[in-house]
């Protein structure tokens, strides 16, 4: 049973759609706004900006975060910058160009109307963040500085040293804090969403667990916004923070929200390779390093001489060899796969032979040590702190790692999921990046959704509920969902097996990484779809959670998150199996050009796959949203 989904994109020319929407949407009168309550889950860029803006408009807002403070959200770790079509350089940038670059970067798998809106509001974001005091880099004349990022042909990236995500998140957090201080937002910290409550087909509220006391509580509202981030930790090892998880989105999915394109995951090429089996996370090194570093591996597999003992003619500078015009700056997915091929062929370097060299000796010779230090000093220090090796003397070792997920809850133009009244914002939704996200666009999308899209679109829904009663927490459905959550946690605590949640997470991550990581094949995905359910059965029988369900128990919290990754993992593999083409971050070995590049199938797969939960994680229903391109024409990416 599959259907074709309606994106509800407004009428009119592409460039007019957002204006037309705003001109025709239903509004809520200022005096009536206080009659509505909105729940916002997650306080990263999207959640904090949405909560602050909705409260400012006059809605009652309850904001939930599982962190001790909203400022801890993982948006804080973004390094590079934020794109905006300001054209402050006069180098030919425009809303149209940012729109087109985003569509092309997404390998023609994103929705035109959403992406155009994103490019339009990008300029407002910069104005807004500067007004809030974000200390973006400046030139000596006092104007904002820009840089080019991720292979873009224009300089449209605004940045605050290597900590742009931190400064933007603190900006949004401070606006949220202002509302909390003034009573506009009620903040619930250390509170984790454990389920979404749906009554008569619409979102009625949430059930949360107080992580300090273990107590479950129900919260009702007119609308619920999930801004709970991506699911990159399904791979166990990723650049995500330790606590990042899919639970909120997955619980919504199990209650009826469709999950779109779960196989679109982004692998970042320049991370520090794993050093040990118990390693908990990988650290990203900014991609800017590839501007001056040269990537190479020994020509002969298993050559374990020290790097400086390997002569030039026994090194393979494979990116420069394969992609002469882009060389070491080849896009993320292409350089990631090339590194994997080298390591798989036994040419990997380091003790575990799991990395490739990123060598600065040529740059140090050309520019001098001081210039290199000026450009990359802080990154070199970070690398040395983690690995104990000094990159001025020894080449860095890098390897790709999971970094961002383009897939997420399916949303229409108004960011509403398939459950009326339930919205998804930021990385939690699937909306803007297609099959691959451009560098410096994640921050842009989070803030766009939270500051400039949701506050407009939500009134279109809420206005229908003016002076009508909605179910409160005394409705029996809330008690039922609370009981189901309680049973679930009791179940984890009472399995009495032998393995910790972390052990299962690590094993699950290995399967997903091996078969649904950088390169996927039909046989591999079939294999994963056999191994994941088998491991899941073991999880149900052999899990051990010490400590009870009352009170603070980090092991119990982890068990719930890992269980949701199991079901998501199955859906990721299913989606990757059914998408019989390669596009962006989804590379199926069977579908490649003679040169080994992604081979799209626009006739059969120019659509969004949105999955409906059927209760059986191995047999979900696939729905599609056809991607209709009015403005752009399909092109093949080439970086030769």
């Amino acid at each position, binding site marked *: 049973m599959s259907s074709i989904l309606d994106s509800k994109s407004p009428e009119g020319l592409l460039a007019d759609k957002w204006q037309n929407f705003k001109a025709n949407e239903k509004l809520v009168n200022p005096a009536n706004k206080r009659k509505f309550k909105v729940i916002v889950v997650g306080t990263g860029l999207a959640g904090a*900006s949405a909560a*602050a803006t909705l409260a*400012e408009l006059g809605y009652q807002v309850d904001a939930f975060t599982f*962190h001790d*403070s909203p*400022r*801890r*959200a*993982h948006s*804080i*770790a973004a390094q590079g910058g934020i794109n905006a079509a300001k054209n*402050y350089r006069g180098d030919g940038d425009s809303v149209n160009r940012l729109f087109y670059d985003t569509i092309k970067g997404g390998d023609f798998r994103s929705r035109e109307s959403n992406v155009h809106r994103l490019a339009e509001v990008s300029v*407002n974001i*910069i*104005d*807004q963040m*500067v*007004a*809030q*005091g974000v*200390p973006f*880099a*400046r030139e*000596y004349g006092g*104007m*904002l500085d820009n840089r080019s990022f991720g292979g873009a042909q224009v300089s449209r990236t605004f940045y*605050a040293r290597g*900590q742009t995500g*931190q400064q933007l998140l*603190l900006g949004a*957090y*401070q*606006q949220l*804090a*202002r509302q*909390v201080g003034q009573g506009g937002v009620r903040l619930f*910290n250390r509170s984790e969403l454990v389920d979404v409550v749906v009554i008569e087909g619409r979102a009625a509220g949430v059930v949360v667990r107080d992580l*300090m006391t273990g107590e479950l509580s129900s919260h009702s509202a007119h609308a619920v916004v999930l801004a709970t981030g991506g699911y990159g930790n399904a791979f166990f090892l990723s650049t995500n*923070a330790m606590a990042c998880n899919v639970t909120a989105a997955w619980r919504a999915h199990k209650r009826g929200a469709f999950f779109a394109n779960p196989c679109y995951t982004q692998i970042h090429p320049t991370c520090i390779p794993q*050093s*040990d089996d*118990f390693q*908990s996370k990988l650290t*990203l090194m900014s991609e800017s390093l590839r501007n001056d570093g040269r990537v190479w591996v020994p020509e002969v597999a298993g050559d374990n001489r020290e790097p400086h003992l390997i002569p030039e003619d026994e090194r393979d500078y494979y990116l420069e060899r394969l992609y002469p015009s882009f060389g070491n700056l080849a896009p993320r997915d292409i350089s990631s796969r090339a590194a994997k091929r080298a390591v798989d062929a036994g040419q990997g370097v380091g*003790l575990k032979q799991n990395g490739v060299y990123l060598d600065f000796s040529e740059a140090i010779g050309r520019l001098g040590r001081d210039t290199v230090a000026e450009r990359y000093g802080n990154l070199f220090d*970070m690398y040395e*702190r*983690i690995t104990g090796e000094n990159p001025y003397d020894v080449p860095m070792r890098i390897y790709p790692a999971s970094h961002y997920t383009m897939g997420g809850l399916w949303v229409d133009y108004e960011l509403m999921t398939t459950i009326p009244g339930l919205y998804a914002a930021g990385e939690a939704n699937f909306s803007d990046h297609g099959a691959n996200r451009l560098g410096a666009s994640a921050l842009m999308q989070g803030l766009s959704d939270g*500051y*400039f899209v949701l506050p407009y679109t939500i009134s279109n829904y809420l206005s229908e509920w003016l002076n009508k009663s909605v179910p409160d927490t005394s409705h029996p459905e809330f008690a039922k969902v609370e009981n189901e959550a309680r049973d679930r946690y009791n179940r984890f605590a009472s399995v009495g097996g*032998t393995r*910790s949640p*972390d*052990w299962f997470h690590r094993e699950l991550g290995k399967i997903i990484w091996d078969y649904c990581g950088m390169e996927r094949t039909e046989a591999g995905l079939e294999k994963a779809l056999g191994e994941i359910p088998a491991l899941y059965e073991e999880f149900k029988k052999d899990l*051990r959670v*010490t*400590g009870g369900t009352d009170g*603070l128990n*980090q*092991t119990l919290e982890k068990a719930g998150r890992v269980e949701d990754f199991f079901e998501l993992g199955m859906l990721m593999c299913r989606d990757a199996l059914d998408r019989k083409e390669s596009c962006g971050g989804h590379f199926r070995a069977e579908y490649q050009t003679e040169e080994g590049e992604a081979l799209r199938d626009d006739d059969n797969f120019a659509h969004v796959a949105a999955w409906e939960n059927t209760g059986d994680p191995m047999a979900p229903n696939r729905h599609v949203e056809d991607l209709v391109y009015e403005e752009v024409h399909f092109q093949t990416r080439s970086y030769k």
Partner: protein
Amino acid sequence: MTNTLKNLTLKVWRQDGPNTSGSFETHTIEEITDEASFLEMIDILNERLIEDDKEAIVFDHDCREGICGTCSLMINGQAHGPERGTATCQLHMRKFSSGDTIVIEPWRASAFPIIRDLMVDRSSFDRIVEAGGYITAATGGAPDANLIPVPKPVSDAAMDAAQCIGCGACVAACPNGAANLFTAAKITHLNLLPQGQAERYSRAEDMVETMDSFFGSCTNHGECEAACPKEISIDVIALMNADYRKAKVQNRKQLSRT
């Protein structure tokens, strides 16, 4: 290259809740590679505790790249341990030697009550920001970003202060449990910028007074600067004090006008 550390003795603070008394629990780490991070060592210990059917040690941590500010820990009496300018999550075992005894405690400060084991409640920091650590700028009304030029030295100095990750090491290191470095870093960030001028003195007054309601007083020991993983300079406290003093005069003058 990789070395293995042997026979580490960990003395870890265990405490069931805010109102119970705690004690040190001793664990031995027979072997660990010096490539491991300090928190990975605790991860491994926790796995072992679960295997032995014991409860894992509770501690706060998240990004593990030194930017979210969630991790804490007094390590051998030093906030974030022995490496300067480094948060606990970025500390690696190569900073220790075989046979070491390592004492691990939660942040020490009465304004950060212990929740359990090594986890403390730092929400008093949020209260300080809520009191004025922002620029009031309603969404949608902002002028073009290049309308107000900000001289580069000013922007750089604001950024130096804005780097604070809100971890609380400054408070934990301070003999008085003062939060002056944290509060001053935010005040300096916003009060230096042209956008922050309209609320400059109300911000200074409100934030300082909220800070004083939770934390101890600064007596210029400078321990905060030494412990700060972002190496924020104690100079910011001078700016805060100057602005607070001016605020007391300015704000009073305004009161007498009404």
